[in-house]
């Protein structure tokens, strides 16, 4: 069974249609990378899957349930889907530990002790435990982003959506965040990743989708997309990336 299926998803902001009918399937334990220029609809697509943006047309099915059907409780759907944003979006008025335990306590109704034990276990696993009592502004960008990933993981999601999670980081901090994602992939986490890190996409993805102007222009295994792209637009896009020295 597919973890996520999108059928003819369309989304407009005012007059401008950002997604022109997206069809996509992500199998369980698969990593799917979305590549494409800024403004091609990658982020919007992720936000739609997580129901942060209502779609105008089409259907989204997560874990066999159509989440875009009327009357579906969006809060319940979001519990099972973790999303990590480009700008981390940690809660600045809470310590790292409180950031991570807030949702398990308030949404899942876990006790303070139970939520903290879980959180500390995750923080240990990702080398962040000594920062548990710090406020986010004391952390480096890489640490903040890893905390954001841990915060999403604390809800034990079946699916993770990563929205250009390394784009706001200094180059030397990118690696530590990518390592976390590698570890998640190795653990069998189903992930849908929007990224500009082509080398990383090539290494980690089971399937790469090239988005252009709100449609998936081309999709395939990474070897094919990066070595022998069929569409001229894909070739053009990758060429520019190579020229910029990013592949």
């Amino acid at each position, binding site marked *: 069974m597919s973890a996520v299926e999108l059928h003819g998803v369309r989304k407009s902001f005012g007059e401008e249609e950002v997604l022109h009918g997206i069809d996509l399937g992500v199998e369980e334990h698969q990593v799917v990378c979305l590549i494409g220029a800024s403004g091609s609809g990658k982020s919007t697509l992720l936000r739609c899957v997580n129901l942060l943006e209502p779609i105008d047309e089409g259907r989204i099915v997560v874990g066999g349930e159509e989440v875009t059907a009327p009357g579906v409780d969006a*809060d319940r759907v979001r*519990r099972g*889907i973790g999303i990590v*944003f480009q700008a981390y979006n*940690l*809660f600045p008025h809470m310590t790292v530990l409180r950031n991570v335990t807030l949702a398990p306590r308030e*949404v899942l109704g876990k006790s303070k002790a139970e939520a903290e034990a879980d959180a500390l276990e995750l923080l240990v696993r990702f080398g962040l435990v000594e920062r548990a009592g710090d406020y986010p502004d004391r952390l480096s960008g890489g640490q903040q982003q890893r905390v954001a990933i841990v*915060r999403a993981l604390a809800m034990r999601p079946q699916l993770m959506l990563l929205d250009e999670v390394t784009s706001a980081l200094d180059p030397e901090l990118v690696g530590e965040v990518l390592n976390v994602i590698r570890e998640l992939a190795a653990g069998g986490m189903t992930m849908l990743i929007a990224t500009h890190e082509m080398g990383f996409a090539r290494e980690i993805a089971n399937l790469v989708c090239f988005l252009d102007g709100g449609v998936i222009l081309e999709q395939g295994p990474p070897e094919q997309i990066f070595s022998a792209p069929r569409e001229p637009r894909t070739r053009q896009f990758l060429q520019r990336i190579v020229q910029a020295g990013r592949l």
Partner: protein
Amino acid sequence: MNIKIFLIAEAFILIIGLTIAILRSLPGPVFFPVRLLMIVYTDFFRGVPTILVIYLFGFGVPALAISGVPRSEFVWGIVALTLVYSAYVSEVYRAGIESVHPSQEAAARSLGLSKTKAMRFVVLPQAVRRVVPPLLNDFIGLQKDTALVALIGPVEAFRQSQIEVAANFDYTPYFATALLFVALTIPMARFTDWLVAREQRRRR
């Protein structure tokens, strides 16, 4: 008397102001009447001079002689000040709520928190921290305006000084009262400065 009026009114203002601000931020067409009502309320009470509201409540309501309604000018003075200042304070809160970036709410909702819980745990705590200085600024204004309650009867500091002046034809009591008000508001002003400075240090 002034301090008592101030403290009682302040407690109500903080709660009512926040309630109005939250009601005004409710989204969707369903809540349009609620939002409209709150907008009318804030527009009205910010537009009408405080002294007029105090007269209306202080003389008007007791004059209606409705049974069960308190007749004390002290109570109605507090009601009037609360109504006026809640309108101001709700706008301060609202500015605070709107200053919290929408991505914070998105992050909270994406974790499965309901709209109410996102507001309570993520948006409001950040909003309130940011608006403490302007809130205290409004309260300095409130502290002074407690003198207006004198006009409907209760003998507070300003009224007392009027009585003294009339009796002795000596303006010193006015001066003393002025000093009294300044002495009361200065600690508040310095406290505000201190909070602002602390917030700036924290951000660095």
